[in-house]
């Protein structure tokens, strides 16, 4: 399965037009400045100057190497890096499932399938974009922390978790809530066990990696979490209309899940983009001009994706709630990592979308929430495994259902 996923992600990265990915041109400018001049870009040099530099440094360096060797366009290594990170994320979620739920092979398999067949991950893995690398690094940090919490925190594991999470934060700011969740759980564990050294080591290493970036942003742009536009003045509560929170056109997400319908309605906009391609940046012509017709099949394919996503979304939400309850009841620090990190990421995401409203809806993207994918997939897998009837017939039915979930999506997932 992992070989097939690797082939899929590599194929897509090879065939996807890098300029159609989110912020592609600005990403290229950033990577060029970092890899050629060994400095951060100014506000005028790249529209994504607010993004931490790790992925840009790697993609830019690999791109320069590719150009020198004459191996193709300079952005392809960045896309392949994103694809590799997507595959690593799948592997890490599988390993995380094994650490948290040993001997539960069905759960391991289901979590792997749900991550590997996640349209948001597959799309992000083809783009010239840092998102998947950040997810892979953060998931690695969570895996190390979970393993340590289940056995024993050592200085080595604490340093490794801190380093991975610090590097994730140096790739995308969406990893910061995951780092906070790990530190909260590690802190509570330290309180219980009276062993503070691993917690301090984890925090110190991650902070040592992240602090220079935050200090630079504070000094250069006036805020450690600066964005590429200032927030509008006035109360946060006034920045989004009620429709943003209520999603009045949610029902149409199953029928016509593409731009411009329900733009800036958080739930349907996000749902349509997670399971499909709301902004039409994937295997479709660019969004049509006014009065123009979308090619036949584009909307129906995305509507099919939206329909497929109903049950897995329900199970993911149920799983996160269930894991939260179970970790509280059993006082399991390692289990608490998943719901806590997901809640942190979602909260940060909603605050961001409210703080920076946009008329074209560009601050609502499913890929911004990829950091919550490992927890969501494991949560859904947990519910399926906990509630499934036992017996050979049901096991066969489950395998068939999983196979169908993947098979039905393949026409959309393969470029």
């Amino acid at each position: 399965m992992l070989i097939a996923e690797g082939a899929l992600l590599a194929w897509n990265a090879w065939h996807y037009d890098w300029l159609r990915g989110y912020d592609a041109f600005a990403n290229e400018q950033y990577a060029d400045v970092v890899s050629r001049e060994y400095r951060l870009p100014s506000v005028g040099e790249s529209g994504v100057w607010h993004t931490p530099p790790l992925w840009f440094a790697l993609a830019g360096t690999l791109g320069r190497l590719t150009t020198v060797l004459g191996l193709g366009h300079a952005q392809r290594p960045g896309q392949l890096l994103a694809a590799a990170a997507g595959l690593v994320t799948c592997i890490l979620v599988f390993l995380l499932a094994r650490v948290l739920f040993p001997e539960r092979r069905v759960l391991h398999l289901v979590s792997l399938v749900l991550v590997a067949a996640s349209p948001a991950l597959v799309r992000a893995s083809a783009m010239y974009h840092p998102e998947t690398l950040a997810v892979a690094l953060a998931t690695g940090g969570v895996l190390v922390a979970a393993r340590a919490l289940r056995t024993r925190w050592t200085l080595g594991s604490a340093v490794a978790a801190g380093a991975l999470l610090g590097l994730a934060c140096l790739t995308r700011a969406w990893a910061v809530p995951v780092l906070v969740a790990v530190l909260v759980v590690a802190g509570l564990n330290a309180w219980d066990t009276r062993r503070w050294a691993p917690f301090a080591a984890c925090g110190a290493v991650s902070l040592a990696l992240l602090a220079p970036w935050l200090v630079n942003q504070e000094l250069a742009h006036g805020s450690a979490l600066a964005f590429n536009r200032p927030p509008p003045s006035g109360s946060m509560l006034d920045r989004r209309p009620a429709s943003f929170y209520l999603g009045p056109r949610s029902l149409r997400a199953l029928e016509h899940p593409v731009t411009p319908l329900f733009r800036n309605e958080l739930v349907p906009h996000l749902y349509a983009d997670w399971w499909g391609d709301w902004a039409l940046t994937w295997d479709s012509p660019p969004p049509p001009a006014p009065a123009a017709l979308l090619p036949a099949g584009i909307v129906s394919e995305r509507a099919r994706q939206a329909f497929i996503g109903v049950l897995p979304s329900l199970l993911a939400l149920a799983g996160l709630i269930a894991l939260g309850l179970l970790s509280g009841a059993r006082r399991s620090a390692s289990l608490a990592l998943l719901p806590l990190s997901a809640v942190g990421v979602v909260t940060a995401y909603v605050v961001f979308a409210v703080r920076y409203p946009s008329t074209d809806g560009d601050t609502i993207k499913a890929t911004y929430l990829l950091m919550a994918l490992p927890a969501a997939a494991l949560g859904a897998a947990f519910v399926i495994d906990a509630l499934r009837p036992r017996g050979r017939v049901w096991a066969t039915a489950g395998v068939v259902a999983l196979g169908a979930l993947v098979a039905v999506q393949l026409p959309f997932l393969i470029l």
Partner: protein
Amino acid sequence: MTERRAARIGVVCALVVILAQLIVASAWSLGHDDPTELALTRQCLEREKGLAVETTNDPIAASASGGALATVVEGNAVTIGVARSEAEVERLRSAYSASGDPGTRLDLHGRYVALWHRDPSPTQRQVTYDCAY
């Protein structure tokens, strides 16, 4: 707490959240209708272009599933039908061409099929393009 019990509670809570979202959406959709492309076009022609918009007696335009309207742009009368698919655009074009080639009087712009009384000037065409959604 058993795993099964936690999972059941999770499913119930998730169903409640999703049900609440669906109730809000259903309540809203019962009380509101999104404006159609034709309504938006009519509104644009009237409010932004200052034109008088009427219903049309043209049976071909009136057969368009997205509706039809008629107006006069810079002294040139035009009937606009809004189609829902490429096949319907083709059907309207064929219907207009059945009684002789209308030439440039017939203007296809995405889902919008416009029949002008005389050959339209670029500025006249642009007015209808500006109000196409």
